């Protein structure tokens, strides 16, 4: 027996010795490819962040890097909460909590189905810095070795500071400073016990305990953290109870989803295209953008209110818990007319729900919003004036290889003889159709492209009624060309890009190019002023926007898209609303929602606040322009028979003589005589340039 005991004793001793030797040998092998630890440890947060700034200098976003702060600027409650929750023996161990590790090993080995974690804060730091999230004993061993090295080299404050500055609390919330700002709009030093406990519970699962989405879970986790603090003696039970009862004021979720997220996406995409993702995420660029945070906030509010209202009208408010119900979406872009700088951009109802940027990616038919390009083309190529009379009446245009096109008016009625200005104000489709039929679709396409529409446009007759897809950014930019007497400024959203040392990499040059005749541009502006003051866009005035403005509504077939694009002399804004999937916008009574009803209110609400305090600037009138009052039916100065008058802008060479456009057989189409049936021209194929003799 004694011999057995002795043998057993020495066997255990030798086995233990061999194990130690084996572990040491293994250690020497593993050490070879163990990652090097940066020295000093603060180097881990030295990646310079790329920062994106608004035009006002306000920082909008930080990409990469860490907002590192010294431990002295972190709330003591938060430090205690993290230590109590993650590693309560942190201040005493040397990188590994042996008792906890043995317990975890026991549970893992002998209690099937249960896995117990035992990583100390130092081990978690090592894992986050160097290792993947693969679960293996070797990875765990390597992580433990690095933790031991970190503990040997740095003091506890350094380790805790590094840990707290790199830990993830959720997307765009890396490090405690970003997290405190993001969740509570506070600095890390300002966190109270309740907030500290809430945040300290997040790293376990930032998604599962996200207080914006799952407040109940987050509060349960907060209670666990507080209990741990009580158990470890950092706070008393009553303090914990008080903290748990303290109401939490989360930063507003719109703020959390960043000001101008759609805009920022656009900026980041540009940067990545230009410099590559590595430079954007690790290069420390300083990007000055054109966005005005005040206007952006107003735009987001106007769009949210407008879309909520539309959802109400259309009966598509998602039921609680049923977020899948399709709801109306929208986009708004505001561009400075004198430079092309994008001042505000909203790409949808809520960025957090869908990042699809409808302001630039969504190419939807503009409907009648496209008519100003058709009217400008008529002034330029046909020699028409705003007082030129055409006849609104049933119309058939033959299209080669396709069925005849019979444009109809929204009102399903015909107004007879009507001057161009009045026709645009009332958005009369048959007049726009006659204009494109005479000028040719290709000329209209050319005008739209000159103004700034970059989407591919089909040179067909129906283009006059906006049947080609365009984006709100294009519309806002193209209409700005009218506002500036025909000088086109390319839209841009990045003013300047600098490297981390402030050396300039890229600057935008504000360059205008004359693309339209100033007199004809002004005439179109004057006609569009009529739309806003007395025409299809009068909702803007009813909603209280009183500054000089011009614009045009747009509604497409079956009410799938509703637009309003308008401008003052300084700001051009385009609004689109509709469903993502091609579904009509109809109210609960089945009545279709037009641009004037769906989009114009969003435009008016935004512009009213955006232009608050601005002086009433008038559009610049070219020298060659004079204003005359005419009868909208005859195009001549009013007489005793005139029931209505309208002011038109005419160039020096134009007269309000009641020019009547004749049809192809030479008969007058307008005047006091009976309305003549329209003689369709010879058949033309879609996209063909039509050349015909005009009277």
């Amino acid at each position: 027996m004694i011999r057995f005991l002795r043998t057993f004793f020495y066997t255990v001793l030798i086995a233990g010795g061999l194990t130690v030797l084996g572990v040491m040998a293994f250690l020497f092998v593993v050490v070879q490819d163990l990652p090097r630890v940066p020295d000093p440890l603060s180097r881990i947060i030295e990646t310079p962040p790329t920062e994106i700034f608004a035009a006002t200098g306000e920082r909008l976003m930080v990409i990469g890097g860490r907002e590192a702060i010294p431990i002295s600027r972190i709330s003591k409650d938060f430090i205690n909460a993290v230590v109590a929750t993650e590693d309560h023996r942190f201040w005493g161990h040397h990188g590994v909590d042996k008792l906890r590790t043995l317990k975890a090993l026991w549970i893992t080995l002998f209690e099937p189905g249960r896995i117990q974690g035992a990583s100390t804060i130092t081990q978690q730091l090592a894992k986050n810095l160097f290792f993947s999230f693969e679960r293996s004993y070797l990875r765990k061993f390597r992580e433990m070795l690095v933790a031991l090295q970190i503990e040997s080299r740095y003091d506890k404050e350094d380790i805790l500071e590094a840990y707290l500055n790199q830990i993830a609390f959720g997307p765009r919330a890396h490090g405690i400073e970003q997290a405190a700002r993001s969740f509570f709009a506070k600095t890390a030093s300002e966190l109270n016990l309740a907030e500290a406990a809430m945040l300290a519970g997040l790293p376990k699962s930032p998604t599962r305990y996200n207080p914006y989405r799952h407040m109940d879970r987050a509060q349960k986790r907060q209670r666990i953290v507080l209990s741990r603090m009580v158990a470890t003696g950092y706070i008393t039970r009553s303090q914990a109870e008080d903290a748990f009862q303290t109401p939490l004021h989360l930063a507003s979720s719109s703020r959390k989803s960043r000001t101008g997220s759609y805009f920022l996406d656009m900026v980041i995409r540009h940067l990545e295209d230009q410099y590559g993702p590595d430079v954007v995420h690790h290069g420390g660029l300083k990007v000055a953008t054109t966005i005005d945070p005040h206007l952006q906030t107003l735009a987001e509010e106007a769009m949210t209110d407008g879309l909520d209202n539309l959802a109400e009208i259309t009966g598509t408010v998602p039921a609680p818990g049923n977020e899948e119900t399709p709801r109306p979406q929208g986009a708004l872009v505001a561009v400075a007319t004198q430079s092309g700088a994008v001042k505000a951009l909203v790409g949808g109802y809520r960025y957090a729900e869908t990042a699809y940027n409808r302001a630039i990616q969504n190419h939807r038919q503009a409907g009648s919003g496209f008519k100003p390009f058709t009217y400008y083309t008529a002034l330029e190529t046909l020699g028409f004036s705003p007082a030129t009379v055409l006849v609104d009446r049933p119309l058939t245009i033959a299209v080669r290889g396709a069925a005849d096109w019979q444009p109809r008016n929204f009102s399903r009625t015909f107004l007879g003889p009507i001057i161009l200005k009045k026709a645009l104000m009332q958005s009369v489709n048959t007049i726009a159709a006659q204009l494109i039929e005479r000028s040719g679709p290709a000329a209209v396409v050319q005008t739209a492209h000159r103004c700034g529409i970059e989407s591919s446009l089909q040179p067909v007759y129906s283009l006059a009624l906006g049947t080609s897809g365009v984006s709100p950014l294009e519309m806002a930019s193209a209409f700005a060309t009218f506002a500036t007497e025909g000088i086109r400024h390319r839209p841009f959203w990045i003013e300047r890009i600098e490297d981390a040392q402030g050396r300039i990499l890229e600057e935008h040059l504000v360059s205008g190019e004359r693309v339209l005749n100033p007199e004809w541009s002004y005439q179109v502006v004057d006609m569009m002023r009529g739309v806003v003051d007395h025409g299809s866009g009068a909702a803007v005035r009813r909603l209280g926007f009183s500054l000089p403005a011009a614009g045009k509504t747009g509604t497409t077939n079956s009410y799938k898209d509703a637009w309003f694009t308008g401008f003052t002399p300084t700001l051009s804004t385009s609004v689109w609303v509709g469903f993502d999937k091609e579904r009509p916008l109809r109210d609960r009574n089945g009545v279709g929602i037009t641009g004037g009803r769906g989009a114009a209110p969003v435009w008016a609400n935004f512009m009213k606040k955006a232009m608050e305090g601005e002086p009433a600037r008038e559009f610049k009138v070219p020298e060659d322009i004079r204003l005359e009052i005419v009868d909208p039916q005859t195009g001549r100065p009013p007489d005793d028979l005139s029931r209505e008058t309208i002011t038109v802008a005419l160039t020096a060479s134009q007269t309000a003589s009641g020019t009547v456009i004749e049809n192809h057989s030479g008969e007058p189409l307008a005047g006091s005589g009976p309305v003549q049936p329209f003689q369709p021209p010879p058949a033309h194929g879609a996209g063909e340039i039509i050349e015909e003799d005009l009277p």
Partner: protein
Amino acid sequence: MDSWTNPQTFNDWLKRVFTLRPVALVLLLSLAVIAELRFDWAEQIIGRYLVTTNQFRPESGAIWEKGHRTEDARQILEKIVTDKQAVQREAREAQNFTQVAQTLSRGIELIISADHFRQLYNELPPELAAELLSPYALVRIVSENEWDRAFFEPEAGGFNIYFLNKDNRVLKQLTVSGDMLARIEHGETPRADTLGNLPQFANRIYPADRFFRALEAVSEDVRRQGVPWPENLLKSPGRVARVAISDEVLSGYIEMGFEIQEAGRTRVILFQGRDWAVARIRSVLEGETFEKQITF
């Protein structure tokens, strides 16, 4: 049956088990374990050992990869900035438009100050300067007191010049053709052509000997202003066969063409002379009774 060597009593057991050696060993081991639990000496030894090997270990892992990316990004940006600065330095040190044009012909954008532009503009031969931008237009831009910099952007063989204010707003834009760029860069060079193919000279083409007789008949001042840089003609091999004078006056200059024949090849060198001087030469040419216009 028990061996006779086995202890017979409990005391014998104790005496046999607790001998000095195993007890010392157990005590020693216990001490080691307790000391480890209390003082973490094993962790400290391993940690310190790892610190000594740190600098020989690979820079691997997420944080280093991020560091490498940061370094790559830094190098990319450094190259962009260095290249830009080199070009700007080159532009700043440019003594004449030829040097600027050489940079542009490498497809590189550059910015120079307004003062530097004026200095380079003044260095250009007057007729080329006037063709680039009328001196009156330049005076107007200068007098508006907004102009800060000129940005040169290569485009389609030529280049654009943007006159910028401090806010990067374009005050004026010029487009300079590839041909003009070549003339700035290399001076006037003969082109393979004949005067008859150049429409600006139709109806005003003269035999060279008559042109030079007329040139001799005018004063030295008229000769210098009418035909500046005659050395360009001397540099070109071959003989001048015909001379033509344009009808158009451009910013105070009139273009002239000298047709040179050499070994069966015909080339044309273009000049711009001051309008009043060229007009004087032309009046002498056309006033000579024995001369008449030659139409080919």
